[in-house]
């Protein structure tokens, strides 16, 4: 089954609009447990936005708060200029697709999808038209009379999606929509989700703990940890310029060298815990508790000492074949540095475990990062 093309005429039946969404100064505590700490977010009209973070970071709590299932202690949620903080869930027009899909087992697919329209007192003919269109959009028009239990996981998810978009919500909230699907379906469904979002133009928030999902689907991402928004930005921004150590290590792999700054002015050096001494560029701003952070693919390996570079000799201690790259671990100065070398099909792996190699650390392009705000 290929990614099905979304029926453009069906999408046109749904009268969806792109609204902006603002979360202002939101705090939420369960007893002494401070779950959300002063969350502020501005989400643009029509944007595909992700809440990304490890489990327990508060991302789902924030999503449910937008839908009205959690009440903030302080702060408000504004959608399209209207403060919805004091509305009950059923008056919000904020469409939430549940992680478990939450399809009602006692209703057929069509009845599930029609539910929200019936609650809104939409006329019967109009309900039929829009239910048919919504099911057409997700490619399930032929399964309208089935029960949810007769559908596969992927189909159930599409029904849940159709059930939500059919009410023409002001924003679309997706709670870990890919977590109950197998790996292959995930790639397909995330493309479909992106496609659908583009057609409908709905402002959409996607909750996930998987950086790859967020990177591939979303326009912008808010990285969260322990109830705090760590950084907001496009996937590339977050990867290239992480604001702190948490973002740097959560999004992709990063080498983190701990140590301290010695010397002043042009003689400044960064002395790692393992005893490596690295020069610090003249203009670089290095905070007091900073670590040196760089990605595995910007470091280089060489048999001979590269001229003029900041390089150190070490031994290969680990080798992982990842497909497009081979990831090496090199013991240098009591610490392991990870370096990715592009894998060239047809060529043998360049280094064996135990080989002596030189690691070229790109000090100039490396980042100096604090540990992050928890």
């Amino acid at each position, binding site marked *: 089954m290929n990614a099905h093309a979304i029926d453009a005429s069906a999408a046109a039946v749904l009268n969806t609009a792109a609204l902006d969404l603002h979360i202002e100064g939101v705090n939420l505590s369960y007893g002494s447990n401070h779950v959300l700490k002063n969350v502020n977010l501005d989400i643009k009209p029509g944007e595909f936005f992700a809440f990304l973070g490890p489990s327990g970071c508060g991302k789902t709590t924030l999503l449910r708060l937008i*839908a009205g299932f959690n009440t903030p202690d302080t702060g408000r949620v504004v959608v399209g200029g209207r403060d919805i903080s004091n509305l*009950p869930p059923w008056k919000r027009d904020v469409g939430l697709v*549940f992680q478990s899909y939450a*399809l*009602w087992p006692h209703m057929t697919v069509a009845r599930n999808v029609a*539910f929200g329209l019936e609650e809104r007192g939409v006329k019967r003919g109009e309900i039929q038209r829009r239910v048919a269109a919504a099911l057409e959009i997700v490619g399930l028009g032929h399964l309208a009379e089935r029960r949810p239990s007769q559908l596969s996981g992927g189909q159930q998810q599409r029904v849940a999606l159709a059930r939500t978009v059919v009410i023409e919500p002001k924003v679309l909230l997706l709670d870990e929509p890919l977590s109950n699907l197998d790996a292959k379906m995930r790639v397909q469904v995330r493309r479909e989700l992106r496609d659908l979002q583009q057609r409908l133009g709905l402002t959409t928030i996607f909750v996930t703990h998987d950086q790859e999902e967020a990177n591939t689907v979303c326009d912008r991402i808010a990285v969260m940890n322990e109830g705090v928004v760590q950084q907001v930005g496009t996937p590339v921004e977050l990867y290239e310029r992480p604001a702190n150590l948490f973002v740097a290590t959560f999004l992709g792999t990063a080498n983190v060298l701990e140590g301290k700054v010695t010397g002043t002015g042009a003689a400044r050096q960064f002395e790692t815990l393992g005893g490596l001494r690295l020069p610090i560029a003249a203009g670089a701003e290095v905070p007091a508790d900073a670590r040196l952070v760089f990605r595995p693919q910007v470091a280089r390996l060489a048999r001979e000492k590269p001229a003029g570079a900041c390089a150190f000799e070490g031994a290969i201690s680990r080798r992982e074949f990842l497909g497009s790259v081979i990831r090496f671990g090199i013991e240098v100065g009591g610490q392991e540095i990870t370096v990715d070398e592009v894998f060239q099909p047809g060529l043998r792996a360049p280094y064996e475990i135990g080989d002596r190699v030189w690691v070229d650390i790109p000090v100039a392009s490396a980042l100096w990062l604090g540990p992050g705000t928890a």
Partner: protein
Amino acid sequence: MSLAFTQAPARRWRLPGTPGQIALALGLTAFLLAFLLVPVGSVIYVAFTEKGSGGFTLINFVDFFRTDLFMRSFWNSFYVSAMTVGLASLFALPLAYITTRFEFRGALIIQTLGFVPLIMPPFVGAVAMQLLFGRNGSVNLLLNEYFGFRIPFMEGLNGVIFVQAIHYFPFILINLSAALRNIDRSMEEAAQNLGSSGIRMFRRIVLPLAMPGYVAGASLVFVKVFDDLATPLLLNVKDMLAPQAYLRVTSIGITDPMGYVIAVVLIVVSVFAMWVSALALRGRDYATTQRGGGGLAKRRMRPWEQVVAYGVVGLILALVLAPHLGLLLLSFATIWSFSPLPDGFTLAHYSRVFGESSVYIKNTLIYASIAGGIDVVVGTAIAYLVLRTKLIGRHWLDWAATAALAVPGVVLGIGYLRTFYDIRLPDGTPLATLWIVLVIALAIRRLPYALRACYAALQQISVSLEEAAENLGATKSRTVRRVVVPLMTGGILAGFVTSFATAAVELSATLMLVQSNADAPLAYGLYVFMQSAAGRGPGAALGVIAVLLVAACTLISHYIIDRNQKTTGAAR
């Protein structure tokens, strides 16, 4: 190489199990045939047999449908069962709803008190209910004095409905509460997210999802009430089906075909009600709870809602606990007649019961112990054969034993009389009059419940535990003895206690089979006492003892199951 193949022995015909397993299966088959299938079969056979000639006939059924008394009895039974379901739902719905949907202080107490009516045989409560709610009972005396009217709670069929509803509503409460708790909160949240709330959401989402649980409880209540013999008899209501069957057999004799026809009607209605419930439940496994999530969101109540809720709950609990209170009062009362409360209090009834009636208690302990023992042995054996062997037809054992659910006590009693009365011991006494036959009847009646307990216990034991024993050199039978049975102990004990407790207060079959006072169990004694006004005091004292006995057993069984779950929980 090819030699090796040709020398390989031809596939030998093998027994489908070890000789021990086959012997066990044959023994169980014989037991179920002799004490369940043949007696019930003979009842059905007689109902379709012409008296005298012995040929097949429907004339008995034609007679049944032509006789006004029987038709009236049939509709009365139907009406009482249906109304009981309605009234019981009225008690159960608010309790289930309030305790599962709101943050309600005392929810646990309510759920526990909700079970209390089950530990008293309904006919015991009936007498106490007469004193409290009868025409000249406490409530009506007070109503009449202050407001000048009475409410006919206990008149005729009303009395049966009222007593049965109070006794059986826990079945609905238990099933409905479980169904409500099994609804994942995302079901409700999805509806709210799509714009639904309040009563509308309850009607469209919560109620349909809880429906299968409700139907299961309701059909059980229907069947129980339809089959019950003792409560109508004690309330002097004779024009219902089960009492009619009993009266025909006891007054006209076991050769009268009408008793058998009624028995068949009882079976048909039981099977029909269970079929309806199975139909309602089929394909509706609505347990929607997700891992981690659980149950509906509980809401805090507003003050006025709390007042209403506590009022409703208090009223219902007062009603359903009334029989116990009444019974307790009666057991200590000197004279209690035409007054809201007894004239004075005494311990005389208890001393009388312990003095001259201790034989009832002794008999009950013996009978219920043996019946419970038979149940767990047979239950464990069947469960083992079904789950752990590949014997052909092993499921039939399970089905046959479970079929006892659909056989009313009266029917089993009639069947035993029919089948075993003509079998005489060497000294001429009919087999049917021996007390051991009554014990077996009790065991058969309780077998389905014990079987399910043993079945569940065995199902929870991983096969690999047994394979490990066999791998280390234990034979099948030694594995069963050293690994399987010890691990099943909790489940087996729970099954035993349940069987014991319910067998101790069973009356329907007992009433048919007890021949002499000396052989009678407690339930029979109670029934005899309650027949006369003078016997009500001692009867009530005996009733209190019965209630305490059953309550103690129930507590023990809960304790065992609980402890067992804790100790084996980690191993699973």
